[in-house]
């Protein structure tokens, strides 16, 4: 299972996102490591179909997939039980990961 976290330095929320992702993987018993992919500019964002920082992918699929006309550097936000945050909760990540782990 290939697990990626896409981010850009401008949005500090990716670090919390990484912590929660690692916790979720541990709780789900997934031993794969997380590849961090830094997105540097809009060209790379377009190429990678980057939906904002942080984004989480398993086997190339975004855990919260959406289609856009264009892709650029942005700070992604997530609707959590505690309101809008810059990263998903561990539980949200676990729920999404389960659909890949089976």
């Amino acid at each position, binding site marked *: 299972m290939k697990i990626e976290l896409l981010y850009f330095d401008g949005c500090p929320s990716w670090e919390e996102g990484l912590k929660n992702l690692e916790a979720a993987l541990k709780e789900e018993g997934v031993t794969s490591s997380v590849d961090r992919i830094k997105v540097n500019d809009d060209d790379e964002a377009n190429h990678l179909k980057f939906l904002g920082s942080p984004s989480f992918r398993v086997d190339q699929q975004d855990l919260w997939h*959406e289609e856009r006309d264009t892709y650029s550097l942005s700070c992604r*936000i997530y609707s959590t039980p505690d309101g809008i945050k810059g990263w998903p909760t561990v539980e949200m990540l676990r729920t999404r990961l389960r659909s890949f782990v089976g």
Partner: protein
Amino acid sequence: MNNSRFVAWMTWALILGMIWTVVSRVSSDQPQAQPGAVAKEGFAAPDFTLDLLGGDKVSLSDLRGKVVLVNFWTSWCPPCRLEMPAIEKTYRSYKDIGFMVIGLNLTAQDSEQAAAGFVKEVGVTFPIALDRDNAVGNLYRVTALPTSYFIDRNGVIRSVIVGGPMSEALIQSKVEELLREGE
């Protein structure tokens, strides 16, 4: 439910869905935005009323007749910060000929103090609306910051830009295009 009845039911559901999509989409020359629309290009911009930084309130529907840029932002979002001076400059250039900006701060994910500090630092003069409970963010289904909605004089969303920073040239071209339509 037998198979043929299920197929008939699904067909009707599909037809009704298609009719609703066509009916709820409004063309730019319609004078009135329709209630209940979704926040997508070609659809009426959902209305909202929010408190403004420094007092007073703003309702999107009160701005009908103007070209409006609704810019979702937070003070901790670097691309939001980077594009704010360009938005301010465009606002100053076109505000007297029918252009309005609402800087829509996602206050639930920010703080009024931080937002006020940044606005002062940049010298923003357009209204800053405070979305304290993310009601408008949810209404517009904002998933990334910044996100900008360009709305025409009829209240129809004509362009959505997710991410940033938008260049001054990009903002100006979109605003000028929409302003020209009202001439």
